[in-house]
């Protein structure tokens, strides 16, 4: 694969790509890698969501890519500006694992499932269907999304490679 064609998405980061470029984010644990895709214009977007809601933010200036409730609307808008049509958007997502099993009341320890729930809630609000997902369980994932085929490739240490 030609590396020049890969757009890297960092933690709490979002990017868009088109025309066959590949969006990639590595080492998703409790974070969620969510992609949106418009099949007709071949415009794709990816966000690496770290936290479920900006309501808990104590930052002076919010990094909107970090939270599910702020990053998804922003990604939709960016893709729309590239000529994509939000009505045609479909979503895929991976991550949201619980890397360690803990018996504790500390809510931040179940951040993975909460990230997944919050992403789904936002997508529902924008009427974007979730085509497929590989979320939860207890392992890390690296994902790539191809803006030509709309396919997401997921790699993990335990489970090898799969495509959704």
């Amino acid at each position, binding site marked *: 694969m030609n590396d020049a064609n890969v757009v890297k998405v960092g933690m709490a980061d979002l990017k868009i790509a088109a025309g066959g470029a590949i969006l990639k984010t590595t*080492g998703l644990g409790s974070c969620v890698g969510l992609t949106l895709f418009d099949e007709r214009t071949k415009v794709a977007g990816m966000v690496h969501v770290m936290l479920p809601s900006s309501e808990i933010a104590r930052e002076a200036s919010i990094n909107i890519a970090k939270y599910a409730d702020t990053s998804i609307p922003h990604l939709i808008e960016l893709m729309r500006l590239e000529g994509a049509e939000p009505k045609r958007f479909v979503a895929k997502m991976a991550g949201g694992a619980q890397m360690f099993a803990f018996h504790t009341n500390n809510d931040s320890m179940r951040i993975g499932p909460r990230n997944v729930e919050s992403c789904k809630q936002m997508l529902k609000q924008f009427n974007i269907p979730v085509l497929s997902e590989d979320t939860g369980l207890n*392992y890390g994932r690296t994902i790539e999304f191809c803006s030509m085929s709309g396919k997401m490739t997921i790699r993990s240490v335990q489970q090898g490679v799969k495509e959704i």
Partner: protein
Amino acid sequence: MLHRLEAFKLDVLKEVGNIGAGNAATALSRLLDKPVDMNVPTVSLIPFEQIADKVGGNEQVVIAVFLRVEGEAPGNMFFIINEDSAKKLLRNLLALDVQEEGYSEMEYSALGEIGNILAGSYLSSLADFTQLYLSPTVPAIAVDMAGAILSYGLVQYGEMGDSALLIDTTFLEGKEALAGHFFLIPDPESFDKIFSALGVPNE
């Protein structure tokens, strides 16, 4: 607040790491019945993206023992080693035929116990030093990508910004053969408590 930490407060945190990790190194040395060296801890405010670089990058497979520090100065603690070092530790410790690939239940639980002993000695010396009540949760162990593992310890920081304050100590057995990292990531709220416990004035 974290962005304005003066040099001397960083020195205090370095000393906190030094004392805790020193005790852990002694414990490890007893376990292995061999000398274990440690590097002087580094204390730094690191962007999330770069924390996993300390152990080989986001996708590097590592063995991590994680525990949550509860009590008066809560935080997250990781003991992280690479697979070669883990196998070496197990061979030294268990005197068993350790397989090249994968881990048996017994090996897994031995690694968890090593993490437990190290974290326990780190924390109890910190608690003595600061006179703060600190108690570890039962440790959990994972073999996975460093990025996936470490990001789990950054959630508390995520609400504050995009960097975390990390106290990092490297262990060395026989110069370079065993490279283990001890990461202590105190919760943002814990710093004031640590400083005031140590008599560092709050301006």
